[in-house]
């Protein structure tokens, strides 16, 4: 039976946050736990499917495979998953071939951790299915299992 991994696990951080914005410190960089994973952004061969644009507009700003802002090695959602999986499976969703529409929908509609829920007005069930098809095809094209 295929194992389903959480998209965004609850963050294993102190229950009371280091302050947002103000307590980031003068460097503007929040202290982060060590993040395993590739030193450079992984190679992603993007499948030419309708879900690509939906993913890029709705998911990739957090779950893309590229670097994060202001020196962060990864985008927030990817980094969170990378920390959780510790290299066991990819943190970047575009390298995941185990996420079908129902699995994605579970997290999209319910949110998890710092990821809020998405409404049908912004991401329809059909959109989620299209993203799932895109992710699977992209992961396969990128030859990562």
């Amino acid at each position: 039976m295929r194992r389903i991994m959480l998209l965004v696990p609850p963050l294993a951080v102190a229950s009371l946050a280091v302050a947002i914005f103000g307590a980031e410190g003068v460097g503007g960089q929040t202290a982060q736990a060590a993040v395993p994973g590739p030193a450079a952004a992984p190679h992603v061969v993007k499948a030419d499917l309708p879900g690509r644009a939906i993913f890029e507009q709705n998911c990739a700003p957090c779950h893309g495979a590229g670097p994060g802002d202001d020196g962060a090695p990864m985008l927030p959602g990817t980094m969170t998953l990378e920390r959780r999986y510790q290299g066991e499976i990819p943190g970047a969703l575009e390298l995941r071939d185990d996420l079908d529409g129902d699995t994605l929908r579970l997290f999209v509609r319910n949110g998890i951790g710092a990821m809020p829920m998405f409404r049908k007005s912004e991401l329809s069930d059909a959109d989620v299915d299209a993203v799932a098809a895109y992710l699977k095809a992209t992961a396969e094209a990128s030859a990562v299992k």
Partner: protein
Amino acid sequence: MAVLPPDLDAANFARFLEELRGAVGADWVWSSEDDLGPYRDSFSPVWNQAEERHASAAVAPADVEQVQAIVRIAGRYKVPLFPISTGKNFGYGGPSPNVTGSVVLDLKRMNRVLEVDDKRHFALVEPGVSYFDLYRHIKDKGLKVMIDCPDPGWGSPIGNSLERGIGYTMPQFRDHFGASCGMEVVLPNGEVMRTGMGALPGSQSWQEYKYGFGPDPSGLFAQGNFGIVTKMGFRLMPLPEYYRTGLITVPRRRDFVKLVEHVNYLSDSSLIGEAVYGSPLAALMGDKAFYALATRQGGPSDAEMDAAASKAGLPSWQVDLQFFGPEAATRENWEYAKQRILADIPGAKAIDGDHFPLPATEEQLLNTTQPYKTGIRRYGALGVPSLGIWRIVSGNGHVGFFPVLPRSGEAVFEMQRAMCDGLREFPLAGRFFNATTAPLYWHSYAFQMVFAPSVKHDDPALNAEVHAAMKKAVAVAAEHGWGDYRAAPIYQDDVADTYSFNNHALRRFHEQLKDAIDPDGIVAPGRGGIWPRRFRK
């Protein structure tokens, strides 16, 4: 369905929903618990508590005519509507309403960029347009304008500005409501109204002259509940030719007073973009002895803080400056800022930062080449929407209290001390208010500080502490003349209560207006602390 609208039974609610379906189509009305889950506030400190506000349904119109139809149906059934734009008002309530049983009027489908003019420098958009959408539109069409966006780019210019949200570029654009110009509003009776020059048929200057003639009611729709904004114009900055940064540090705690005065001058003279203040001493907060000093009852003395800075070999304060414009102008303005500040504050130092032509390259956007540790978040600084900021969101999010204070060093010291002392019973507060806390220069002519503790859905004890601390923070700040600028529905009454001059004359005026325009509370009753007669206790 989990909840019903106020004063409506199940049979009439079913009839109401059927009318909504007739107006917008069955696919765009939701009332099941599953479908309404995403309309909860995922950042709520009262998650699964009695105080949490729940919608009874949601409806997503495609155009203004459908908005009008929904408002008229709601009026017949006296059902409160709670309009949202993209629904991303996280930290301030998300898409959840003030009144349980409200129907969320979800405007996400109204997502057209109606116009962007890069010769007259404005945009006209619908509520469902996100900052990502507007940025993409401008890029795709090669238009020479720059937007000013908040940290998370999935919010909407209309929703953010109606919350009086902010960005990070030049002063006249950072205040998003202040940079708006002209709006279209569906009133509680279903009529469509346009403000400013939009009220004059045939006018071509709706997005250029916001006042028109006579009173301008547009301010009533920001943090208010007098109508549903369906179009709104925004001024845009012409894409600057060049971007330059620089850092100023000052050695002593009291130097901050002069530093702020100089930066106020630079900002009010339109010479700089957002100035990002910080204290390098914040890096010492992990040290127990320093933490105790910085959070001590009554506050530390200047001499003690200066001794700590000297021992650590750190300056007491720094400010990141940013310059936009022609290359030569940015160079001269930075030189002027350096000369002005270094000549007046002994020991002040300046470091030249990154500078490059705009638009920035992908590499420049990543902000990895500053020769010093910078507080600037470059995507925001250059008006490029992103979600990179989500890296600092922990738990299930946070709530936000952002008291407004004067732009002076003395006021900063006073807020550090008073808020730290006033919230001493909440250990979490010391991380937000201490002797190293720097002001935020988001709004163009005022400072703010931030109290944004995190919450967790499965930790009601933590959430209760956060909730109590938030209410106490509002009260402590008000005792000192500081007010919150924006609040989640669960705190809006508390905050509105603090704006109480002359026996709450402002609130009573708003209530009079609300009673005249919307006595049954069809549009967002309670929003901004304004309740119509029907809902007033």
